[in-house]
């Protein structure tokens, strides 16, 4: 890993004042994104993964938001940046792709025109025809057939998968260093999902675009990520390389996520393994470890919140928030020959 990360978040905290009190959506998230790396942030709804991503590009700023910590892109501190500075960062250096390809384009303008607008907003002196030529080139590069003609289509004339590709084309228009993809394939059919994942992968490999991929689907993570952050109730509960997370997961929540997947390549189990209960309300978090109420392996020490630390001697970058002894974890996570969370007693 290179010494100076491209993007670095340190102690990021995002809270929103609500009628019910302060809602701490993100509570102390730190990570480094190296150039050319794909970092996946995994978690359930409400785990704070999207708020983390949106805060990086300043989309959560509002009168009721309290944002603390630091997010640095190279030498630029993004949390203190003015709106004008941020506008230069967005699109130009960090681009974002959202979940819903239906609502991320303006339905009343032609797709090409929206891509041209994004280019011309950042590049003075690019003429409309140059912009259009670039838009065609971009649509072509993300695999839109007959791009020369389709560039003048309206968003509704594109299918869901094509719209998501067009979205990615627009995100790439200014050759950003970082691409943030927030559930980019969740609304898509599997065959289309596979195409979009291949596209993201090739962008990363061929153009070296560093990517933050936000998803709740570990299957998607296994296909593209280099490193994984697992988030739960606003905190990172485990962090490691792709293989560490899948083959030596340390946090019971990660076991639960892995165990609840249906696998086509294995004989089907009698019952799916589930994580019982529901994530806690961020307004009334349990004392100690936030996963404690759903965890079958809870013991006395769990009343104290564990720090995010490397607990394995041979893997200094593999960190987790669980008090269990690593040797005991290896026994406890084996359920019916696979990694999973056993049913609560």
């Amino acid at each position: 890993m290179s010494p100076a990360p491209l993007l670095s978040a340190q102690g990021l905290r995002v809270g929103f004042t609500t009628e019910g009190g302060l809602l701490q959506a993100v509570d102390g998230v730190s990570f480094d994104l190296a150039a050319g790396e794909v970092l996946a942030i995994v978690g359930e709804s409400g785990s704070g993964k999207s708020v983390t991503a949106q805060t990086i590009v300043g989309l959560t700023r509002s009168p009721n938001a309290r944002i603390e910590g630091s997010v640095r892109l190279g030498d630029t501190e993004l949390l203190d940046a003015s709106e004008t500075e941020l506008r230069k960062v967005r699109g130009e250096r960090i681009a974002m792709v959202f979940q819903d390809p239906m609502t991320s384009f303006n339905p009343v303008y032609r797709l090409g025109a929206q891509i041209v607008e994004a280019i011309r907003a950042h590049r003075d002196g690019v003429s409309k025809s140059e912009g259009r030529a670039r838009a065609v080139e971009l649509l072509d590069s993300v695999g839109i057939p007959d791009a020369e003609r389709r560039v003048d289509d309206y968003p509704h004339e594109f299918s869901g998968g094509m719209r998501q590709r067009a979205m990615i084309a627009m995100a790439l228009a200014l050759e950003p260093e970082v691409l943030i993809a927030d559930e980019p394939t969740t609304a898509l059919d599997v065959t289309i999902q596979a195409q979009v994942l291949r596209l993201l992968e090739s962008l990363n490999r061929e153009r070296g675009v560093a990517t933050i991929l936000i998803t709740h689907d570990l299957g998607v993570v296994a296909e593209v990520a280099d490193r994984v952050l697992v988030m739960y109730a606003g905190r990172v509960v485990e962090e490691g390389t792709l293989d560490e997370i899948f083959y030596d997961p340390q946090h019971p929540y990660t076991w639960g996520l892995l165990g609840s997947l249906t696998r086509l390549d294995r004989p089907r189990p009698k019952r799916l393994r589930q994580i019982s209960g529901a994530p806690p309300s961020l307004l009334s978090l349990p004392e100690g470890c936030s996963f404690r109420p759903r965890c079958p392996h809870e013991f006395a020490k769990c009343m104290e919140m564990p720090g995010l630390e490397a607990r394995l001697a041979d893997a200094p970058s593999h960190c987790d928030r669980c008090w269990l002894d690593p040797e005991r974890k290896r026994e406890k996570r084996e359920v019916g020959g696979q990694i999973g969370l056993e049913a609560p007693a």
Partner: protein
Amino acid sequence: MTADEPLVEVTDLVKHFPIKQGILIDREVDQVRAVDGVSFSVARGQTLGLVGESGSGKSTVCRVMLQLLAPTSGSVRFEGQEIAGLSRRQLRPLRRQMQMIFQDPYASLNPRKRIGQIVGDPLKLQDVASGRELRMQVQELLERVGLSPEHYDRYPHEFSGGQRQRIGVARAIALKPKLVVADEPVSALDVSIQAQIVNLLDDLQDELGLTYVFVAHDIGVVRHISDRVAVMHDGKIVEEGTADQVCEHPRDDYTKKLLAAVPIPDPRESRARRASSSAA
């Protein structure tokens, strides 16, 4: 009626939607062949999984099967009785035998009604229970789906997606139906919550002897819950067989393509698959 007679038998079912053009005179210029000659049967107490991509016609099949949409042609037999073409009044007593669970747990519960009312309405409308008896039955239902009787007076917005889907399940089983059609019941939920709902449906099937038609685009979930699986593409069933047959030894090219696109949540195998597919 014999024991091995299927609960539902669908034969050559067709549903075409007209495409109309013109302002004063609606001329039919073309048709969308949403369902184009589909046949299948579902045995009692079993689960048929319908998988396919958006626009393959799987939701339309469900709606036509339940006579929520009138078929263009074809036959739907429920317990041996032809129900295609029956009037609303004739269908009414049959409705309690067949219920539906919907995809979107946010849109399928009326936000202005309390949970007790949402789950109790089918019982009231079909004159099964009223008053204190109704309340008791609803509270039992809530417990059965893993909610608490105290949730009776709450509103939908107070619940998470998974809990809302449990409410949808309680409403569907309230009338002790024979057939439950679940149209993408877990696709809007997080993976860990999906497992909870799938397990709940499994348990209810064992307890109540329900027959399911389970629709989803996630072939992994479909394989888990189904006895038989039918793969739909462009309004037709392209392959049908036992869940393991279809998923492990697919014969149709479209089924193969669908299976190959499902991500494998295992980095080593996923790398191996990509290496072999790029070499090919």
